[in-house]
């Protein structure tokens, strides 16, 4: 098969996007949506068709040289290796479903061209990240998804809050990008190339301390994109976008790009223990933090957003403890069930009459039983109910952490387990509040488009059965994913008993969370006091902290530079100089008094001075 066909994978969404940009506003919404869906679906089927190219070392292919100058060479080139295949399949697959869903979701929108164009472009950019064979091309995709996310979060731009959320997302992730860019520059300085495989291959030549710095920089980049501590504040706000966007970008794909990046660079990353520890620590901390926040959220999508953050924390943890397959495994399952949950949430919001607040929902189970069941599957996966995809992937990560055996790992493991409990609690809290109890919503709901409801089952299926991808030996699996990714060291050196014990522990935490949620929210009265919840609701008030710590000083700095620096100092100096000349000019001018006698005295003084000077000269 012609490797150049690989370029069609990202190119199809690009073409779709460009088509909709150029002509979308003149075509009917149906055609627009159809083009978008077709582009992504085509890309998905191509991925499947070209699957074989990705085996083993993978395939490298090159279209043209993007930037070439003085030793730098950045191609538009793809690296279709196992990691990329699996990721691109996930991206295109989930994206196809979400596109279809979106076609239904947006069918009342007057002009969806912008939406679908951006969505297509997003898929293109995401595929660039996934498939890029060099870091610069990856960076293109990296920024591209950032922009598309910006555009889509603020899609309903009339509300300033939405646009603000988009901007926040863009800028906060850009802070992360800054680190990635520095890492990129540094790597080029060190290796003279930006090709991923070369960098990975020669990473061992580097000084360990330098390596640590590089890894930390990469981590910074990943944190920004994946909403990890401390750059996580944008994700909850990003829920202002349309739900399919949240599902695609802020759950399944873009936010996992950070994880993907770290996996991509894993040969390099793994060489720095400090860096790895930092990654794991960030992951675990974020997981715990986000889970704690999710407990108190009131908006359905914000709950999911925090849960996404928390789950990505797990993935970081996985990378940090050295299991790429674990990370990728959780990434995949999470993509499925979280997309499912978001899309389900979209349906719920529709049904509840565009109501977001879960305290004002309830009793939806009777109204839409099918959605309930699908949502339940998602919740179970998220909470880590045994035998669901989420259960296996999460378990694999915790096992790996536990298996490392050192103190830090134990701590991380503990955090992971605690998080699992919290996850279970807030998942079921969500479920109960939305679907059980009395109907609390005031608005009348809309009917669901079939396009919306029928895209959920495949995802539900994928979520449920996702575990099969990397079924551990304990359950008779072959760990297909690990093998596909070429990870041989994934065999855990744990005794079976402790493995089982750990499983049991997980089960206990799952059950405990469920139980508490059941007791508290089975028949929820409607409101609960704020108190400590407001602290969690506000995400530990990180936003205000940043506002006080960074934004306000920044704004004052800006204003100071303008008024103080430019206007007062530089312009003041220049204008002051001008005024000085003017003033002196005024004095000199006043010498012309109009009096002849005075003018003649000027003569006399002049001649006196000259004579005096000549006298001095003559005497000398």
């Amino acid at each position, binding site marked *: 098969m012609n490797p150049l066909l690989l370029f069609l994978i990202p190119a199809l969404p690009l073409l779709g996007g460009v088509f909709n940009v150029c002509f979308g506003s003149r075509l009917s919404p149906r055609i627009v949506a159809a083009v978008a869906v077709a582009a992504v679906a085509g890309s998905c089927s191509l991925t499947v068709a070209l699957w074989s190219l990705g085996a083993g070392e993978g395939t490298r292919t090159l279209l043209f040289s993007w930037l070439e100058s003085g030793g730098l060479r950045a191609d538009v080139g793809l690296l279709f290796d196992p990691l990329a295949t699996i990721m691109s399949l996930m991206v295109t697959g989930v994206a196809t479903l979400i596109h279809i869903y979106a076609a239904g979701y947006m069918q009342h929108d007057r002009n969806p061209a912008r939406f679908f164009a951006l969505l297509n472009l997003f898929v293109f950019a995401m595929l660039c990240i996934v498939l890029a064979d060099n870091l610069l091309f990856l960076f293109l995709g990296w920024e591209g998804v950032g922009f598309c996310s910006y555009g889509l979060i603020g899609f309903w731009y009339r509300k300033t809050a939405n646009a603000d959320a988009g901007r926040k997302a863009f800028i906060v992730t850009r802070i992360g990008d800054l680190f990635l860019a520095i890492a990129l520059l540094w790597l080029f300085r060190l290796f003279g190339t930006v090709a991923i495989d070369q960098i990975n291959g020669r990473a061992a030549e580097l000084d360990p301390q330098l390596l640590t710095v590089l890894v930390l920089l990469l981590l910074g980049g990943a944190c920004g994109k994946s909403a990890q501590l401390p750059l996580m504040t944008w994700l909850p706000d990003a829920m202002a976008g349309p739900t399919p966007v949240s599902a695609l970008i802020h759950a399944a794909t873009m936010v996992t790009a950070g994880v993907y990046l770290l996996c991509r660079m894993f040969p390099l990353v793994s060489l720095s223990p400090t860096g790895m520890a930092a990654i794991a620590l960030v992951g675990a901390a974020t997981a715990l933090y986000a889970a704690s926040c999710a407990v108190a959220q009131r908006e359905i999508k914000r709950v999911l957003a925090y849960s996404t953050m928390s789950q990505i924390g797990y993935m970081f943890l996985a990378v940090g403890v050295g299991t790429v397959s674990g990370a990728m495994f959780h990434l995949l399952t999470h993509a499925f069930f979280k997309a499912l949950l978001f899309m389900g949430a979209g349906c719920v919001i529709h049904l509840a009459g565009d109501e977001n607040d879960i305290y004002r929902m309830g009793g939806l189970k009777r109204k839409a039983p099918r959605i309930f069941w699908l949502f339940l599957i998602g919740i179970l996966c998220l909470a880590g109910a045994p035998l669901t995809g989420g259960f296996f992937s999460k378990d694999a990560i915790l096992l790996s952490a536990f298996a490392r055996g050192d103190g830090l790992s134990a701590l991380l493991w503990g955090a992971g387990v605690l998080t699992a409990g919290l996850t279970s609690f807030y998942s079921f809290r969500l479920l109960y509040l939305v679907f059980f109890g009395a109907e609390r919503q005031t608005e009348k709901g809309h009917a669901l488009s079939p396009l919306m409801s029928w895209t959920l089952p495949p995802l539900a299926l994928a979520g449920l059965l996702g575990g099969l991808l990397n079924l551990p030996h304990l359950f008779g699996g072959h760990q297909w994913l690990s093998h596909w990714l070429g990870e041989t060291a994934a065999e855990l050196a744990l005794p079976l008993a402790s493995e089982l014990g750990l499983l049991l522990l997980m089960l206990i935490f799952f059950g405990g969370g469920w139980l508490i949620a059941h007791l508290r929210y089975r028949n929820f009265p409607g409101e609960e006091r704020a108190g400590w919840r407001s602290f969690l609701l506000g995400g530990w008030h990180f936003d205000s902290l940043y506002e006080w710590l960074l934004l306000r000083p920044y704004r004052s700095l800006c204003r100071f530079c303008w008024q103080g620096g430019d206007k007062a100092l530089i312009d003041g100096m220049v204008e002051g100089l001008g005024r000085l000349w003017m003033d002196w000019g005024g004095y000199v*001018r*006043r010498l*012309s*008094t*109009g*009096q*002849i*006698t005075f003018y*003649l*005295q000027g003569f*006399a003084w002049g001649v006196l001075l000259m004579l005096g000077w000549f006298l001095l000269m003559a005497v000398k």
Partner: protein
Amino acid sequence: MIVPLEHILFLSAILFVLGLACVLARRNLIMILIGVEIMLNAVGLTLVGASAFWQQIDGQIMVIFLMAMTSAEVSISLAMVVYLNRRKGTVDVRAFDEMRG
């Protein structure tokens, strides 16, 4: 030898400065012009002295030109004085300061 050249020059210099002082101090237009005449006469003295010193006639000839020139100037100046006096009714130079600055 009659006198050293110095003495002639001293005398003419003093005369010149006296004329200048008159020009500077007086406000009456006519007095200013008289001051100028004194200055020019001092110059004449110098020239005649120098002419004698170098035993050349050129210096004296210059004095003649000076005189001719002076008379031309004086005629114009006095015409101007008459003209100005007719316009402003005064010969005080302080009155002529319409333009300044």
